[in-house]
């Protein structure tokens, strides 16, 4: 059974804007899923629909087997949410605002746990400071502490590292790693591809309210491991010579560029062999260049393909 099970979730706002257009997504317990997408793709709406901040128009969302609308109490008990915006009451003290969050979940006071969370987030020294006296990065740590205060089994991090310093980003990844070891399921949205690469098990791409791809990160990395060598020829050719058929080559439409795809992880890239074969075939090479596929390329490619299809 999936920890988070989303089936055909739709959300149409009052103005008629369709923020979610039939999202299907299953997230396994203990998994870390990174959700990538441009601004306005529906990332935050999807999280809001799961967490109860917005009401889905149609579809079914279950967390830990509990429907988030009908059985909202049981579902929400499992969920911790770190929102994108820094929404904190400025006059409250750090420790009391974190304790308040735990109280909202109906749980008894647990000072030891709160201390442990605050220490882990380097907030313990600031526990008696008012929120408004904290820096932006510290405030974000407070948001994380609040989300962890009721020991959630599913944690949503909505762009947790947008605009934070390197240190907090590293701390964040460390915390995510510790939570993973405790078996907590984590869903994070991000703009940063390297963040997804660093911590996620699977990567999902969302655009215009639809999931375009959900794939194991490692298989994505393999795709990313592909590199392309572009060979610019001095004179155009009409066909790839027979002697070069061993190579995975594509001829550009101008007849002057040959693109060779190869695997950087392979023992031999075949580049030297290709170069020799080119000169044997009597082709004069004018220039060469290489390009690597990155998650970003895959992401941009997916999003722009969709845009073209829509036009």
């Amino acid at each position: 059974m999936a920890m988070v099970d989303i089936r055909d979730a739709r959300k149409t706002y009052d103005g008629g804007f369709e923020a979610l257009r039939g999202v299907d997504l299953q997230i396994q317990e203990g998994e870390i899923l990174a959700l990538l997408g441009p601004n306005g793709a529906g990332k935050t709406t999807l999280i809001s629909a799961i967490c109860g901040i917005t009401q889905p128009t149609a579809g079914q969302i279950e967390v830990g087997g509990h429907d988030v609308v009908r059985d909202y109490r049981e579902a929400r008990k499992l969920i911790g949410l770190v929102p994108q915006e820094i929404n904190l009451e400025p006059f409250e003290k750090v420790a009391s605002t974190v304790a308040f969050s735990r109280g909202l979940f109906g749980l008894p006071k647990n000072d030891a746990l709160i201390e442990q969370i605050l220490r882990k987030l380097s907030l313990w020294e600031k526990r008696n400071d008012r929120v408004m006296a904290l820096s932006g990065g510290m405030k974000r740590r407070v948001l994380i502490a609040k989300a962890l205060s009721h020991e959630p089994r599913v944690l949503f991090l909505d762009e947790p590292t947008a605009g934070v310093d390197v240190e907090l980003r590293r701390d964040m990844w460390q915390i995510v790693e510790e939570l993973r070891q405790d078996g907590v399921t984590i869903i994070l949205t991000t703009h940063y591809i390297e963040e997804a690469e660093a911590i996620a098990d699977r990567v999902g791409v969302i655009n215009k309210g639809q999931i375009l791809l959900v794939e194991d990160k490692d298989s994505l990395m393999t795709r990313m491991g592909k590199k392309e060598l572009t060979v610019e020829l001095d004179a155009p050719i009409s066909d790839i010579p027979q002697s070069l058929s061993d190579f995975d080559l594509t001829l550009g439409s101008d007849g002057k560029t040959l693109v060779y795809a190869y695997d950087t992880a392979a023992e031999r890239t075949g580049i030297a062999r290709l170069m020799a074969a080119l000169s044997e075939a009597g082709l004069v090479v004018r220039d060469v260049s290489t390009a690597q596929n990155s998650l970003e390329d895959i992401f941009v490619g997916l999003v722009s393909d969709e845009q073209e299809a829509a036009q």
Partner: protein
Amino acid sequence: MNFGAIKAIYRNEMARFFRTLAQSFISPVISTSLYFVVFGAAIGSRIDEVEGVSYGAFIVPGLIMLSVITQAISNASFGIYFPKFIGTIYELLSAPVNFFEIVIGYVGAAATKALFIGVVILGTASLFVDLTIMHPFAMLAFLVLTCISFALLGFIIGIWAGNFEQLQLVPLLIITPLIFLGGSFYSISMLPPVWQTITLFNPVVYLISGFRWAFFGMADVPIGLSLLAIAVFTGLCLAVVWWIFKTGWRIRT
């Protein structure tokens, strides 16, 4: 019921009150004293008694009602509007609490603060005039009911308000005039007959009249009618709150 959440909300709201305790305590004391100076000394010297009660004592129930109603509304409306304004409402919406638990927490805290201020005013007033309360339990019951029902109204206003101006609008344009014209500082028997009839459409008249009855045993309208009025008013507020709960109006997009 998530009692832990109700307690958390209530304590969190009360903490805000205690942070500004001096302010919460001093302002009603000063304003009450001012009313006594203005109404008691300036006007009271021209009106000796209203139906056998000294004018200074006569205005005490109205004074308490004026502050209690205003405070209950402003505390409750601000209490729920503020999280909406700064965005912390996300926490309430994503917690395993239902709307009624949220209402009990916020309205309970706002009503407690209003009750506290009512008691402070009563104490201050007793320094200026001799007060004997004829029906103390009825007085307390009226006070508590008023605190709760107007805190409910304040909560509704806080949910409805889209900005700080709207938050002030209803109390300023509707509630304050109704209280002032509701016989806080006069008996409606002192009005010309036409105005006596018009005044009866003001719901606050029934509250102040009932409250004054608890103090002095005299009333502009029968006590039963006063009780009915506050019951109807509380019922209306509860119905609106229930409707907000059903529809998620202005809370859940």
